[in-house]
């Protein structure tokens, strides 16, 4: 593993929870690695997996989808739909040996600034161990 490797994480954060948790982590001055490129979306259920795949193909080392805890979705059930979609993505990536471990789905509520920082720390660490994403390295992808 290259010591200087800094993984790039693309984050799709739900407006009502994870995006607010990110703000909370910031205003509370909780330290976490600056490896994540956050994208605020209205709901984790609005994230088509095509965007996740696009990010990975364009060189992201991991993708984090942050949504509300089950039962807490602002739109009643968007997070459940996101969960099923990620389960399908996992299955397909597993079959094709494309490393589903680079795609994380995490429930992080608006009050969980500490948890948000912890997830980012954990993910950055694990992706550093893994090294660069081979999907984004090929000139053919």
């Amino acid at each position, binding site marked *: 593993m290259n010591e200087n490797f800094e993984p790039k994480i693309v984050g799709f954060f739900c407006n009502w929870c994870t995006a607010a948790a990110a703000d909370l982590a910031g205003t509370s001055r909780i330290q976490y690695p600056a490896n994540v490129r956050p994208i605020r979306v209205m709901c984790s259920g609005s994230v*088509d*997996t*095509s965007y996740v*795949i*696009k990010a990975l*193909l*364009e060189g992201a080392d991991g993708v984090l989808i942050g*949504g509300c*805890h*089950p039962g807490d979705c602002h739109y009643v*059930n968007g*997070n*459940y*739909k996101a*969960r*099923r*979609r*990620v*389960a*399908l*993505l996992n*299955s*397909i990536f*597993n*079959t*094709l*040996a*494309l490393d589903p471990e680079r795609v994380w*789905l*995490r*429930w992080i509520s608006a009050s969980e600034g500490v948890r948000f920082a912890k997830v980012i720390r954990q993910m950055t660490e694990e992706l550093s161990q893994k090294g660069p994403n*081979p*999907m984004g390295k*090929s*000139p*053919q*992808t």
Partner: protein
Amino acid sequence: MIGIYAKGLNPREATREFFAELFGANLISSALLPARKAGLNQIFPALLSSKDSLEETFPFAPVMPLSTAVQLSKITRFANPTNTVAVLLRPCESRAAVELVKLRQISLDNVLLITRDCPGTVEPETFEEKASDTLPGFSDFTEDDLRPVCRMCSYPEAPVADINIGTFGAEGGIILEAKTEKGAEILKHIKLEQELEDTSARDAALKEEKDKRTAYAEKHLAELQKEVAGIDNLVKFFAGCINCHNCRSMCPVCYCNECFFDSATFHFEGPRYEEWAARRVVLQMPRDEMLFHLGRMNHIGLSCVACGMCEQACPHDIKVGQLFTLISTTAQKELDIHAGMSVTDPLPLATFREEEFTEMGEEKV
């Protein structure tokens, strides 16, 4: 109700006879059947308005230029409630039709859904080569001529139908089986040769066929999985892809009028491409072909009926249908969501079960 029909005739003639009876008794107003294009050696679905043209139909021609399910969606739009359209579908077409019903693209209200057992199909080119004045039948081809997806198909009999036309286990004629009340009502008006009380011969024949195909599929898909494992191999697999989207166009369950992958979502200003080229040294064009295939797997993987129309449409003979069979059968098994099994099943990607995948989204243990 299950019984033998027209024992003295071969399945093709018996099926024509059956449809003639349906027309004759005014049980149907029209019928969508595979028919020979006038003067040509091509078999395409045709909508018949009377029994007079049944001579040109070839219900068991072992070729499938396209999925008839898509044509069914055209003729059931604002259907006349007083008419009944009979349609003859293969198992994969019936399963695609079920998916299209779930997607609100087909209404079965005025449809008499007739399916028939399917031993498999060959590519249209293979079919044409063997065709002369007379058209070839299934027995004119060897096992190796069959499309690989057909050899792997675990549905010799359609799971959803009003009436199924059985050939497995039939000794002369066809086995008619009503699978719904609508089908039973129709069969009351049809002269069955004899009721079939003992279906063990048919069950055994179907089981034997399924076992043979399952064994082939297991071996074949395991090899394919090795061939595509990892991004480099996947790139190799799709190397000839020209991004024409033919596979998508012929896919019966890809029903969107405007496809996400035809949209301008990932069109960028010219200089961006140069930036990316500079970063990667070489930027392969066209972009997004891998995104298209992986994205489509995610969009329709849970609705895929493994008919292989995508593969038949591919100008570069990429084994895309076999790959979709691999990922869709695996995913449908793992997620316990099965395509084409019931019109009352919920849509896979618009619904959820609270109790599924509960470990996801939580911390890893």
